[in-house]
């Protein structure tokens, strides 16, 4: 079952949606919530679509059963997705096209939400009344919403809590009396462990924190901003230094400086900011400074669709910056994978002394999913600083520390500046083993070989695509990053309708896991690349790295995420 809350920006759609998610999650339901918002502070239609299920869900789903329309505009925009027997709850003052809804078999639940709010509290509690009405018609116990109200309004004082509770109770009772019997989609609480509601940005932040990230510099850019906000709000005792820099170039350079000094440092941005960071990415590559960059994609090119989703930066991220140097690109598909990528990226960056990019997008960054607390397992986190020399190691160094010493693996033992035996001057120019500038031919060749050998070593630990569904199938969906959820659910839908399908999901994108990918793709009967972009960048990457072509491509570039139903419809 899906519930949608629609309204103008500034009307509290997001906080109401999040509150409702909490109320359902606390009663044991699994939640997936997708946010759709515009690039403005006030006005314009926003919505929050909450999918509820007894089982874990990985994506939103197109059909909607209950709509909370805070504005008249919400109704025509979502009418096509409301199922027969579904309903729209709206304030009596909002004029909706009841005839059109009734023609489609959709029920109209007008409620005096503003009047209830004013009578029992104040007008700004209208959304509380709306949420209570929604819970009521679904048969969802009020107590869950009450607990959320207590927790969320606690900081505003007992009076605000009490008023909101009174408003909720009144709206709940009235909706029950007037409409509950007519609404046949019901929800029942389940016995379940307490679950978290977490989005991709938060999961990356938690992973990075656990992985030892203690420095983060960024410039605000949707949809990556909440990463630095989250880390900035941490208790001071955890010692995470964050810096809102003057621009993205400064942001990435500060992270490089911090990492060079010996901290685990990262930055986060979207495609536009990443474009500005491109030159510095090469600095980290050339001077072999570990660096983690989160790139949460949005619709491009240029300013594009600032608050919407796209997977248009894959080939850009793999190729950004002049010249050739090793880098690693990870594209987690779920919040669990975001958490893991958050700490794994630092291990890879330090092991191979190179930039590691976590490529996500607006859909993954800001969609909330319910997760058992145990799914974020800090005991799985390891901190591997690679060939970073300890003070004792440095003590044993001979005079004349060679920061870029030639080695079979290409990795040179790294010492942070600050020790008498590890004095080093390093350069973004081509340099010798000590870091001094040189254009000498043999050195250049050896230094390039040394750096690029690290890429071959990193390739060894890149993970092959993950299969979902049966080993063999008539149809194989091929996707990467955030498309995992909708594709996985599309596979389930196809199976339920008697089809034979599975999924190959790529999360380690560079160095591309060529051999395993080729082996798995060759075993497929019919492959379809499902990508949230125009030019099928994953399909092109596969062809470039394996010589194999996918049989068909499905693309979406309207800025809205694929739903499982969208994918199935495209395949028909």
């Amino acid at each position, binding site marked *: 079952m899906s519930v949608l809350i629609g309204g103008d920006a500034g009307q509290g759609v997001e906080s109401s949606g999040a509150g409702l998610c909490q109320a359902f999650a606390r009663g044991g339901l699994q939640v997936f919530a997708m946010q759709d918002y515009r690039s403005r502070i006030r006005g314009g239609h926003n919505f929050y679509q909450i999918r509820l299920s007894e089982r874990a869900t990985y994506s939103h789903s197109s059909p909607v059963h209950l709509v909370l329309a805070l504005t008249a505009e919400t109704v025509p925009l979502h009418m096509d997705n409301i199922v027969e027997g579904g309903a729209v709850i709206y304030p009596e003052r909002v004029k909706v096209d009841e005839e059109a809804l009734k023609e489609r078999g959709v029920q109209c639940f007008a409620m005096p939400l503003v009047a209830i709010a004013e009578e029992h509290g104040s007008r700004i509690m209208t959304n509380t009344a709306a949420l209570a009405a929604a819970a009521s018609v679904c048969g969802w116990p009020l107590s869950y919403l009450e607990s959320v109200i207590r927790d969320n309004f606690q900081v505003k004082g007992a009076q605000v809590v009490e008023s909101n509770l009174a408003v909720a109770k009144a709206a709940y009772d009235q909706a029950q009396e007037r409409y509950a019997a007519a609404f046949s989609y019901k929800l029942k609480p389940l016995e379940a462990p307490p679950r978290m509601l977490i989005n991709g940005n938060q999961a990356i932040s938690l992973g990075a924190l656990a992985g030892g990230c203690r420095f983060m510099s960024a410039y605000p850019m949707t949809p990556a901003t909440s990463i630095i906000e989250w880390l900035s709000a941490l208790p001071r005792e955890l*010692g995470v230094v964050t810096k809102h820099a003057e621009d993205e170039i400064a942001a990435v350079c500060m992270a490089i400086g911090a990492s060079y000094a010996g901290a685990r440092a990262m930055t986060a941005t979207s495609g536009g900011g990443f474009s500005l960071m491109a030159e510095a990415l090469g600095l980290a590559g050339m001077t072999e400074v570990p660096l983690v960059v989160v790139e949460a994609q949005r619709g491009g090119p240029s300013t594009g669709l600032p608050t919407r989703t796209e997977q248009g930066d894959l080939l850009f991220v793999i190729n950004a910056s002049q010249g050739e140097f090793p880098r690693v690109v990870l594209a987690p598909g779920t919040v669990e994978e975001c958490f893991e990528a958050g700490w794994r990226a630092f291990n890879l960056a330090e092991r191979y002394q190179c930039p590691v990019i976590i490529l996500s997008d607006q859909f993954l960054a800001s969609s909330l999913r319910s997760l058992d607390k145990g799914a974020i397992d800090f005991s799985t986190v390891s901190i591997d600083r690679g060939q970073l020399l300890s003070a004792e190691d440095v003590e044993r160094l001979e005079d004349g520390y060679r920061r870029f010493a030639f080695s079979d693996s290409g990795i040179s033992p790294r010492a942070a500046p600050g020790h008498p035996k590890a004095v080093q001057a390093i350069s973004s120019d081509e340099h010798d083993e000590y870091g001094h500038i040189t254009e000498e031919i043999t050195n250049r060749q050896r230094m390039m070989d040394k750096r690029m050998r690290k890429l071959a070593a990193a390739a060894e630990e890149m993970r092959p695509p993950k299969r979902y569904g049966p080993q063999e199938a008539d149809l194989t969906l091929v996707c990467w990053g955030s498309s995992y959820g909708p594709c996985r659910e599309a596979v389930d839908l196809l199976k339920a309708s008697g089809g034979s399908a599975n999924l190959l999901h790529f999360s380690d994108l560079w160095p591309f896991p060529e051999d395993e990918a080729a082996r798995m793709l060759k075993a497929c009967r019919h492959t379809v690349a499902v990508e949230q972009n125009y030019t099928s960048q994953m399909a092109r990457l596969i062809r470039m790295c394996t010589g194999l072509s996918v049989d068909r491509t499905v693309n979406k570039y309207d800025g809205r995420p694929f739903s499982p139903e969208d994918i199935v419809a495209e395949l028909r």
Partner: protein
Amino acid sequence: MVTKMDAKTYDTTVEVTWCAGCGDYAILKALKLALAELGIAPHQVLLVSGIGCGSKLPDYTNANGYMTIHGRPLAVATGAKLANPELHVIVVNGDGDSYGIGCNHFVHTCRRNPDITQIVENNQIYGLTKGQYSPTSDAGFITTTSPDGAIEAAFNPAAIALAAGATFIARAFSGDPKHMAGVIAQGVRHRGYALVDVLQPCVTFNRVNTYAWYRERVYDLAEEEGYDPSDRTAAWHKAQECIPVGVIYQVEGAPVYEDQVRALADGSPVSRLLELARAPALGQYESLKERFV
């Protein structure tokens, strides 16, 4: 108690590639003298530079150095300082690097006030790309990209630093390395951001602003009776003058950026990470999960 060091400590055998007579030699010498005077050992300092002739200076110094990319050394230096405030961080870059491509970082570093010293090798020309006008070239200055003479007004580093909130602003002349060393030492001693703008002839491409041209014009502010560098208004007037050298402005006790970062109160990211890698304290994160329930 500072133990002075021998300036030779910072010497290297790396071949210096600057033109004979270049003002950069004097800057290199003055920096070594200043570090020796302050007793800062090679491992205690981090020289961060950008790109350009002068930005090669760390290559010629026995000290930690990071030669980064054009215009960005202040940002890299800020990150390094925040990660390890124990390092003496000194930025060395040219006028194009600092006031042209890197100007955004320059202005924001002035108002941010980290404990970083910046030495700008200001020769009023782009030397490494062989002679184009720079932000500090005077109007009318003829170069390959300004064949009719530069149309823009020259950038005034001291005035802009003052307006942007810098807490230490000084000027030096590369014809007088001893004086420069004193000014640099004052800048490094200053708690907060310190700008040392060095007037430096480019003997190959700048035939106007020569050693002789400067010698006719520079005078030491320290010798001017009654000049008070803590007077912001007086500093503003001096910043417009041709050409006082020495400390133009200094305000002491202004809040230093890293001193105010709450997360640094119990240790730096570098020092804390060493502990973390030895014994990951992952249990302390468990309570954070409650924020999501």
